[in-house]
């Protein structure tokens, strides 16, 4: 039963299995075990980011393409819901309209970007996605009549989702379901071809697979799932703005989560996202303590300042790429 649910892709490591079980149980019981607004916010963010990071891993880890436009799709999802709910009114129909429009736009954009640049090489794709994503970011802040500009959009949801508990479980269950779908995709014959494209494109092509088509499909699929994650996040926050969805900082966070958790395994995305979001919310308190404790020493307080936490994670990121390309999950499985 569990093996079927996980598409036969078992954790293959006792400690990894325990960690994953803890994450799922922790998220499922979060409203009761960790009461309080802050911890529930963290739990919802973990759930959404696991899905977002997993969809990014489909591109980076499984297909071997680096996209800097993933937060753009995340943002399209968020803005789709926000604009529909804020401008048209908080009904289910409008919500559905916003979601469908966002998915359609994301699909069209992902397809167009893929068409323009996936034929060539990884670097070209990375550069083009960076340019397009930054353009989109400017666009969102300029079209303030639509998007609320830098302030973003606050909006109301249909009656049922106004209850925090219902909203939390809706977000959690949908994220979990979509994560299992992703697991299904990467363990299907299609997923195997993606791995083949990543490992040896020339050979995959020689075996008769049109690599461009497989890459484009993976790119579109990743974009759609990122859009879905954006929808969920907007529903949870009841707000969408540039800083919560589109900013380059989130793109960097995503990269860190995928690489530290482990590229090329969906479980790595889950571990990476969980650790990162928790660290983001609680490590900074720890760093503040450390910075205060070392306040007499030159330089150290500046290095340990809570705002400098990316310095340490960035260093960890580089070390991971060099020495542990399979990330935490790879280490756990190797034991």
């Amino acid at each position, binding site marked *: 039963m569990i093996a079927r649910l996980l598409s036969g892709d078992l954790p293959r490591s006792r400690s990894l299995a325990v960690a994953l079980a803890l994450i799922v149980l922790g998220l499922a019981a979060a409203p009761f075990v960790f009461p309080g607004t802050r911890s529930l916010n963290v739990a919802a963010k973990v759930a959404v980011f696991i899905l977002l990071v997993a969809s990014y891993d489909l591109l980076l880890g499984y297909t071997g393409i680096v996209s800097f436009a993933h937060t753009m799709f995340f943002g399209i999802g968020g803005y789709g819901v926000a604009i529909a709910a804020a401008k048209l009114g908080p009904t289910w129909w409008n919500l559905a309209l916003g979601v469908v429009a966002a998915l359609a736009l994301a699909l069209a954009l992902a397809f167009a970007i893929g068409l323009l640049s996936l034929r060539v090489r990884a670097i070209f794709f990375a550069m*083009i996605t960076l340019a397009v994503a930054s353009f989109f970011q400017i666009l969102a802040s300029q079209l303030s009549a639509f998007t609320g500009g830098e302030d973003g959009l606050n909006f109301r949801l249909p009656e049922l989702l106004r209850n925090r508990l219902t909203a939390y479980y809706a977000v959690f269950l949908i994220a979990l379901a979509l994560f299992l779908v992703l697991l299904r995709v990467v363990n299907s014959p299609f997923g195997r071809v993606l791995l083949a494209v990543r490992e040896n494109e020339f050979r995959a092509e020689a075996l008769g697979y049109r690599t461009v088509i497989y890459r484009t499909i993976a790119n579109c699929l990743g974009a759609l799932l990122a859009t879905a994650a954006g929808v969920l996040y907007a529903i949870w926050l009841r707000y969408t703005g540039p800083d919560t969805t589109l900013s380059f900082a989130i793109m960097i966070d995503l990269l860190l989560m995928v690489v530290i958790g482990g590229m090329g395994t969906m479980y790595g995305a889950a571990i990476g996202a969980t650790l990162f979001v928790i660290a983001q919310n609680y490590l900074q308190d720890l760093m503040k303590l450390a910075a205060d404790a070392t306040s007499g020493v030159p330089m150290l307080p500046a290095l340990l300042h809570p705002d400098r936490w990316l*310095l340490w994670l*960035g260093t960890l990121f*580089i070390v991971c*790429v060099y020495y542990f390309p399979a990330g935490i999950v790879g280490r756990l499985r190797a034991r």
Partner: protein
Amino acid sequence: MSLRSDWLPLALLAAIAIAALPLMPSAPTWITLTIAGLAMGMMIFIMASGLTLVFGLMDVMNFAHGAFISVGAYAGASVLLTMKSATRASSLASNLAAIVPAVLAAMALAGALGWFFERVVVRPVYGDHLKQILVTTGGLIVCEELIHVVWGPDLIALPRPATLTGSVLFGDAAVERYRMLAVFVGLGVFAAMWLVLNRTKIGLLIRAGVENTEMVEALGYRIRRIFVAVFITGSALAGLGGIMWAMYQESLTAAMGMQVMVVIFIVIIIGGLGSVGGCFVGALLVGLLANYIGYVAPKLALGSNILLMVLILLWRPRGLYPAGK
């Protein structure tokens, strides 16, 4: 293909400038905007040239290039801000006494950082594009954070030296002094680069290396050493561009390098990855178009770069002047 044998992109540049003329309310406006566009283009070219050469030579795309720009800007700005009395004086000589060390500091620090980067970060991942992108992005994060640690997280205001403020009138056209300087410096860098690439043995080896790395190595030259030199020079130029860009905007933040990087990527894609001539024409195209469209239809200005890139790629899928490989 070189600039000489393929003049179509140059004609496009001229055509855009001429086509913009009737859209302007008056000729002086056109002159002002054209100079502004050229100045912007030149600064972008200075920052982008190193990146495109490094890519052409060694197939390395360095996403941390933006950090070199920021670091150069901060280094130069520190010098300028400590020599306030010299920058405030209205004599050119005392201004230069502050600007020259500032520029040297910017280039030296960015160059040193480039050298360190090549040795420590980039060298282990030659030939692996995916890891290159990841590792250099990680380097970018760390560098930006280190700038915050050293210079503080806030935006720093950087007033231009006294003689570089204000404009000069040509008839009715007001042209900012600083922009004219930027055009001259940009032309100087381009000319120097062109001379080195086309008139010296090192330049010959670099061009041959872009064309076919293995063959140059087989002939007994150590392309690695040349490459390290190019990498350091490119980083130093990023530093120069950084301090120029900071003076142009009269302020600097750690994220400025990354913001400019987006335009730089567009420019080197337009120019053709690895091509210095293409990078030059691409930078001027982007600079001119940004200024014309920014004046005629400000709402469209945001998309003009992307639109230009898409159109150019539809016309020439590998960029204006595709480099060898």
